[in-house]
Structures are given as structure tokens and as C-alpha cells.
């Protein structure tokens, strides 16, 4: 780990801005201290969060630094097609969650996604989901802390451990005193900070490259120099006909089914980390509007995080010396992960530099806080209460939740050191979690919309789907990859043009297997008693009437507007 050649020099104003941010983040936690009296206040904000706050927090909890840094990197690697992760891989699923699924999550009064699975199916299905989810939050929080420590060390020469521990302790403090409310309110603050920190970067860089037309011309050079058609970096769908005509190596069907259906619905409609924000909303109507409100910033975010990556790669290929160039890794390839940090250093004078770095740190913190609040809830409600100590007082579970917050952060820090030492272990763990997550949406879809699905079916379906994902991964390999962590560890029977294509197809196989096995096993075993399914399944739940609400509060209308807007965006950047 060594600093870049031109490590950023911070001045007093940069430090002052960072300090102001830290003080406000902690201040919000302490202002909320009085409102935490019961475990419900701590884990669910006492279900009192207004829709717009929950909506921005929903968006922000997903906006970890890996999202910001990773999407900018993908923007440089793949160009405008990266927008599929937003306009195909997020918005439709968010609309589905708000319009169709939220009534069951919120209406069942479950405190977590695993708890919904227990109400709808049985204990073993909940246990499987709760334990894998809790482990996954720790690992992803650890990986994110590691990335932050590494980045601050590289950019500013700060000590790896000190920067990691300092941020972790701030997050710990504000969650410990203010619980989920504190995380949610801070996520809203962090959301605005990220927008106002990165927006001037986009404006300055876009001005530098000569506006949108200058960017198109630059990207045409990038595409043709690598043997693609001139528009391969600046169009989102036009070159998705075959896997060889776009840099992602994915064709439209794998994109639409793998990302647009299985992966995106699997994440946005079942991941407790984000759904917790909607569960904390003040009413059913607010809970349903939470993901719908989040669609608006979500569909605009490509301009904030992907466009900088596109500009960076276009500038790097621009003829002539001087100006912005992406740094290379030791092996000579471009270091795409440094798009945002290096651009901050290049374009921002002191002052704005402090704001940009604070925005980057804020995105790390919001991601970390999301993981920690989801972990302490699932640990306490879905692991500790059913398996370790039943029927204790509410004060006891509140105490356990606070203890789980401390333990969760310490475990993430340990995980971060583990990543630093043994990168491969974390890659394997992430792969295993991907296998477990891939089939999840089939379980929820059948659970919410097919009353015949039962616990045995759901559990066997999940296990079969996870196995299908691992077998598919074990039998296939992306082109130019080595057998091992990338796949092919059973035998190589199929080669995919890229790792992304392999991921999408792994998800498609896992989902289909889980869907089929859940149906087959449910039909072969006992029908669940109908009276247990009230409020949990579509056919056993009274319709929600929202026709009396003002139009801007009706989920179906908001959802239709979001879908129309996202179709327009896809066509505009076709």
C-alpha cells in the first residue's frame, strides 16, 4: 500500500468540512436518544418514519461506497450499458415491491424479512434465511470497511487501521444511541451530501470533455480502438444483440432475464437491509410509497456515478498529453476502481475536495450503517429470540440489540482484516452467498401469490436452488478465466463470453430450479391451512383501497409513472 504519486494535500477548509459532517452525524444520533424506549423503537423506529425520509434512506442504504466506486468503474469499462443496473436491474423491481409485495411485508407486522418467512412458511425456512443473511451482512460490511481503509490510505496516506476504526466507531456511536432511526435519518443526510459532493465533479468533467457531444466523440474513440462499433460505449441497448458486439459480453435475453428479473427482483424485493427502511415507515401507505419514492433518485443516479466513469475513460483515450488520465495497476491494466477518487483530486480545488471526500466517506458510512442495523435486528429477532432465549422482557431484547450492534461492528472489522490477509476466503464466501441469494425471489413470489406453497416446498426449493447455482457455476467458466473461484471446478462443459454473462445465467438456473422444486414439493405435501395465511398471501388478504387518497399518494399510479419514466430513459439512450 503506497500513496499515489500526487497524494492529495488537504488544507484547513477540507478538514473543517469533514469535521462539520462528523459532528452532525453524531448529533443526529444523540438527538434521537430520548425516542428509544422499546426494542421496537430501536429495531423499527417505532414504525414512525415519514414516506419521503424512508424513501431516501431506502435509496441511500443501497448507496454504499462500493456502489459509487463500482458503478463508476463499470461506466469506464462498459459505458452507458451500465445504466441497465439501474433502469433494468432496479426500477421495475422497486415498483413491484411497492405496489405488490409491501402489503404483505408491512401488513403481516413481521419485524424482518426472515420473520415473514416464518409466518408464511415455517421455522426452518426462516432459520436458513436468517443465518445466511446475518453472515452475509458481516462479510459485506467487512469488505466495505477494508475498501475504505485501503482507499483513504492510498489517497491521503492515512493509516489503514486508524481510518477504518475511526469511521466504524462513529457509525457504532450513532446507531447505539439512536437505533434504526438514527441510521435512517443519517442516510438522508448522507444522500444529500453524496449528491452535492459528486454533482460538481460531473459538471466540471463534462465541461472539460466538451459537453455531451464531446463525450460521445471521445467514447467513439474508446470503442473503435478496442474493435467495437463506435456507439458501443454510448448506447445502452443497441449493441446487446449478440455477446460479441458489446464490452459486457452479454446478450439481451441474459440481460433482461438474469439481471432484469432474477437478480434485481431477488435483491430489491427480498433483501432485508433495504426493506427494513420501508418496514419502519409510519403507515401502510408510507411503506408502499417508500420504494416508489426511491425510484426517482435511483433513475437519475447513473448521471452522477456512471457518467464520471465514461468521461474518465474518454479522457484517458484522448489524444495529446496533459489533462486527466486514469492510473494503471502494477500489471499495466487501467485501475478502474480509482475513477471517482482520482477525478476528485484532479478537478476539485481545496474546499470542494473536502466536500467530495466527505461525500465518499459518507457513502461508506451509510453502507456500513445499513449492514449493521439489518444485522442487529435479524440477530436479535430471528436468531437470538427463537434459538437462544425465548420469552425474555422487551428491555432484555433491546439490550441484546445494542450488544449485537457492538459485536456486529467488531466482527466486520475482523472480517476486514481477514480480507486484507486472505483475499480468497472472502471471494469464496461471497460466491456462496450469491448461490444462496439467487433462488430467493422464487420463494417469495410463490409465498405471496400462491396459497398452495408450503414450508417443506419453500425450504427444499431454496436448498435445491442454491445447489443448482453451485453446480452451474462448477460446470461453466468465463472465457480467458482460470478454473477455480471463477467456475469450472467440477468440469468445464460451457464457456461464457464474460463473467457477467455467467453470473446472470447462474441466477436464471437457480431461480428456475427453486421455482419448480417449490411447486413440486408443495403439491406432494400437505396443503397449508388457509386460516394461517390471512394477510400473508394475495388471495387471503383484503384488497387495499387507495382510490380515496390524493393521486400522488396512490402506489399504483406512482409505480406506473416510474415505469413510464424508465421506459423513456431506455429509449432516449437506446
Amino acid at each position, binding site marked *: 500500500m503506497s500513496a499515489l504519486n500526487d497524494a492529495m494535500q488537504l488544507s484547513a*477548509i477540507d478538514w473543517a468540512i469533514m469535521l462539520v459532517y462528523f459532528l*452532525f452525524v453524531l448529533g443526529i444520533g444523540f438527538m434521537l436518544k430520548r*425516542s428509544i424506549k422499546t426494542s421496537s423503537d430501536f429495531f423499527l423506529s417505532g414504525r414512525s418514519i415519514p414516506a419521503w425520509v424512508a424513501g431516501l434512506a431506502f435509496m441511500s442504504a443501497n448507496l454504499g461506497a462500493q456502489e459509487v466506486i463500482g458503478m463508476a468503474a463499470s461506466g469506464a469499462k462498459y459505458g452507458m450499458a451500465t445504466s441497465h443496473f439501474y433502469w433494468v436491474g432496479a426500477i421495475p423491481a422497486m415498483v413491484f415491491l411497492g405496489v405488490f409485495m409491501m402489503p404483505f411485508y408491512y401488513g403481516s407486522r413481521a419485524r424482518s424479512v426472515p420473520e415473514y418467512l416464518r409466518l408464511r412458511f415455517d421455522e426452518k425456512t426462516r432459520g436458513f434465511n436468517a443465518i445466511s443473511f446475518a453472515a452475509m451482512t458481516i462479510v459485506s460490511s467487512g469488505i466495505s470497511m477494508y475498501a475504505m481503509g485501503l482507499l483513504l490510505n492510498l489517497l491521503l496516506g492515512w493509516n489503514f487501521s486508524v481510518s477504518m476504526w475511526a469511521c466504524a466507531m462513529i457509525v457504532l456511536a450513532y446507531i447505539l444511541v439512536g437505533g434504526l432511526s438514527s441510521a435512517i*435519518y443519517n442516510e438522508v443526510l448522507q444522500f*444529500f451530501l453524496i449528491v*452535492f459532493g459528486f454533482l460538481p465533479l460531473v459538471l466540471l468533467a463534462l465541461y472539460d470533455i466538451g459537453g455531451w457531444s464531446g463525450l460521445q466523440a471521445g467514447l467513439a474513440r474508446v470503442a473503435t480502438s478496442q474493435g467495437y462499433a463506435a456507439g458501443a460505449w454510448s448506447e445502452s441497448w443497441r449493441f446487446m444483440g449478440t455477446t460479441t458486439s458489446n464490452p459486457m459480453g452479454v446478450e439481451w435475453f441474459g440481460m433482461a432475464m438474469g439481471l432484469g428479473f432474477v437478480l434485481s427482483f431477488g435483491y430489491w424485493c427480498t433483501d432485508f437491509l433495504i426493506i427494513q427502511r420501508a418496514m419502519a415507515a409510519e403507515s401502510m401507505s408510507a411503506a408502499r410509497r417508500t420504494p416508489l419514492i426511491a425510484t426517482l433518485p435511483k433513475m437519475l443516479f447513473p448521471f452522477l456515478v456512471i457518467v464520471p466513469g465514461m468521461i474518465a475513460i474518454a479522457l484517458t483515450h484522448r489524444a495529446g498529453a496533459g489533462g486527466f488520465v486514469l492510473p494503471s495497476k502494477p500489471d499495466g491494466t487501467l485501475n478502474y476502481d480509482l475513477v471517482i477518487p482520482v477525478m476528485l483530486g484532479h478537478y*476539485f*480545488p481545496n*474546499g470542494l475536495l473536502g466536500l467530495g471526500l466527505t461525500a465518499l466517506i459518507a457513502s461508506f458510512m451509510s453502507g456500513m450503517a445499513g449492514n449493521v442495523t439489518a444485522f442487529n435486528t435479524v440477530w436479535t429477532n430471528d436468531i437470538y429470540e427463537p434459538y437462544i432465549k425465548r420469552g425474555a422482557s422487551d428491555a432484555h431484547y433491546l439490550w441484546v440489540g445494542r450488544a449485537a450492534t457492538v459485536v456486529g461492528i467488531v466482527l466486520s472489522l475482523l472480517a476486514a482484516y481477514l480480507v486484507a490477509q486472505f483475499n480468497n476466503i472472502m471471494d469464496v464466501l461471497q460466491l456462496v452467498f450469491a448461490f444462496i441469494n439467487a433462488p430467493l425471489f422464487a420463494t417469495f413470489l410463490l409465498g405471496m401469490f400462491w396459497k398452495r406453497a408450503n414450508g417443506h416446498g419453500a425450504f427444499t426449493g431454496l436448498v435445491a436452488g442454491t445447489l443448482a447455482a453451485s453446480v452451474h457455476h462448477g460446470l461453466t467458466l468465463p472465457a480467458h478465466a482460470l478454473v477455480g473461484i471463477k467456475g469450472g471446478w467440477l468440469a468445464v462443459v460451457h464457456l461464457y463470453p464474460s463473467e457477467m454473462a455467467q453470473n446472470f445465467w447462474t441466477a436464471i438456473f437457480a431461480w428456475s430450479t427453486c421455482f419448480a422444486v417449490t411447486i413440486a414439493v408443495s403439491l406432494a405435501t400437505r396443503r397449508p391451512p388457509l386460516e394461517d395465511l390471512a394477510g400473508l398471501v394475495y388471495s387471503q388478504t383484503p384488497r387495499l383501497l387507495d382510490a380515496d387518497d390524493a393521486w400522488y399518494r396512490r402506489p399504483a399510479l406512482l409505480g406506473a409513472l416510474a415505469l413510464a419514466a424508465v421506459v423513456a430513459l431506455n429509449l432516449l439512450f437506446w
Partner: protein
Amino acid sequence: MELDIRTPIGWMFALIGALLVIGGLSSGAPTEGVAAGLNVDAWWGAVLLLFGVGMLLLARRHATQMRSSRH
């Protein structure tokens, strides 16, 4: 929940905006680079300051509405 998040957001952005305006005006505009001649710190600081004040006004309007609806 008694906390209106717009209040801390408003104060934070107003404060950071003011810092940027003061810092930008006292150090002058950068004379090289893309932003040559444009005092980006001062201009962006002004944007943040306006946003912060706007948030504070919204929070205040909300608070007076709540108070009058209680009477």
C-alpha cells in the same frame, strides 16, 4: 418522532456552504486547470448555502403548520 431531519440537514449545508464561500473568496479563483478563472468553491458554496436555508425554511413552515393545527 419529534426530530424533523430537515433542520439538521439545513444547518449542515448552510454551514458547509458558508465555509466554502468564505474559503473560496479568500483564496481566490484557481488560475489553472479546467475551472480556470471560475471560483468553483465560492459558487458551489453559494448553492449549498441556498439549499440549506431552503431546508430550514421548509422545516419551519412545517413546524408552524403543526402548531396551528393543534389549536
